[in-house]
């Protein structure tokens, strides 16, 4: 091979060998053959960190404040997120509880913690190799996280329920929706490939 491996890159989608574009924060680069994004910088780490911390702060009131109360024929039921899930584990709806908890609560929270554990060491001047493991885990979760779908399905199920019962929405619900929206924004602002691009720039 006469070409230097440092100066070329390969398109992830079609395997085309390209000259490496000069990394720059303002532009994005597309593959000339299949139009895939070769390079694109996300937001600055500081912005992402701020968003991530905001969503973590929203997380705690969201799970402990009352979510909503339902009323059918004078029977009233008020629930918080934690209570609901605990009741359901003991009632034998284990599969459903696990699904709801994992998609709606555990995965988003894990991803935020992962973002913190990637960005804080980088901010403190650690090497990109140091955060390689959480980064890999984050990329896997990114393909399977469904916060935005979950958000829409909450709204759909509330509209459905309004036809069955009297429903009043509690404070926790707004916090939870806020949490999901903030965490969705955090995900879209943070580009995991930035970590390696930055690493290259520093050398």
């Amino acid at each position, binding site marked *: *091979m006469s070409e230097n*491996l440092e100066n*070329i*890159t*390969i398109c*992830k*989608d*079609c*395997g*085309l*060998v390209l000259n490496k574009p000069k990394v720059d924060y303002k532009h994005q680069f597309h593959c000339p*053959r*299949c*139009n*895939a994004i070769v390079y694109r910088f996300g937001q600055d780490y500081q912005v992402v960190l701020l968003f991530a911390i905001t969503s973590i702060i929203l997380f705690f009131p969201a799970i402990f404040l009352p979510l*909503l109360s*339902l009323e*059918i*024929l004078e*029977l009233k*039921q008020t*629930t918080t997120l934690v209570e*609901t*899930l605990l*009741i*359901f584990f003991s009632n034998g*709806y284990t599969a*459903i*509880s696990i*699904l*709801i908890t994992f*998609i709606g609560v555990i995965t988003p929270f894990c991803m935020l913690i992962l973002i913190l554990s990637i960005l804080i060491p980088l901010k403190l001047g650690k090497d*990109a*190799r140091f955060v*390689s493991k959480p*980064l*890999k885990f984050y*990329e896997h979760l990114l*393909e*399977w996280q*469904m916060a935005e*779908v*979950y958000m*829409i*399905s*909450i709204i*759909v*199920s509330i*509209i*459905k*329920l309004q*036809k*069955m*019962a009297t429903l009043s929405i509690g404070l926790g619900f707004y916090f939870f929706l806020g949490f999901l929206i903030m965490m969705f924004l955090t995900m879209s602002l943070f580009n995991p*490939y930035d970590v*390696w691009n930055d690493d290259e720039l520093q050398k």
Partner: protein
Amino acid sequence: MNYKSDKDLGLVLCSHCSKVSTIDVKICPRCNSKLKQRDEYSLLKTLSFSIIAIIFLVPANLLPMMYVTTLGVIEANTIFDGIVYFFQTKSYLIAFVIFVASIAVPIFKLAVLLYLLYITKYNKIELARNATRYYRIIKFIGKWSMLDIFVVALMIVMVQFENLSNISAGLAAVAFTIVVVMTMLATESFDTRQLWDKD
């Protein structure tokens, strides 16, 4: 134009940190990930996941998705019943969202997956550009089919009044979850680079 792919030049791209190495390097020197130019079982994986999804698509649409008990009367609802219900109560937007998410998207995804497999198998490189575009579309819409499952699960969690009013999940919910997860796995395991490779 003379395009050269990584296969022609004997190069390999690290899927994790995007470092380029030569084909004889097995572990990425920058991030210690395993390097592989192509996954040789990729097509087989996509095909088998798609077949499982097609099989489960039948019970998912025919069996009841959830049972709604109101004052002791049990009512079974399939996916299609839900759409009809929203249509009758004039929530056209929601009827449309559920129709797209739970009926149109899975079928469209499976059709595209089979089309991609066909193109790859018979080396139709002139179609690769459009096929890559379809792949990006199904990758983007994939998780939206989970919408109906979440709605059912959330309603079960929210409504529990013993005999007065009660919602429980039917077998279709399980079948439908399997369909969605299988199509997502099939999409994951397909590698678009194979569309562009000439053998």
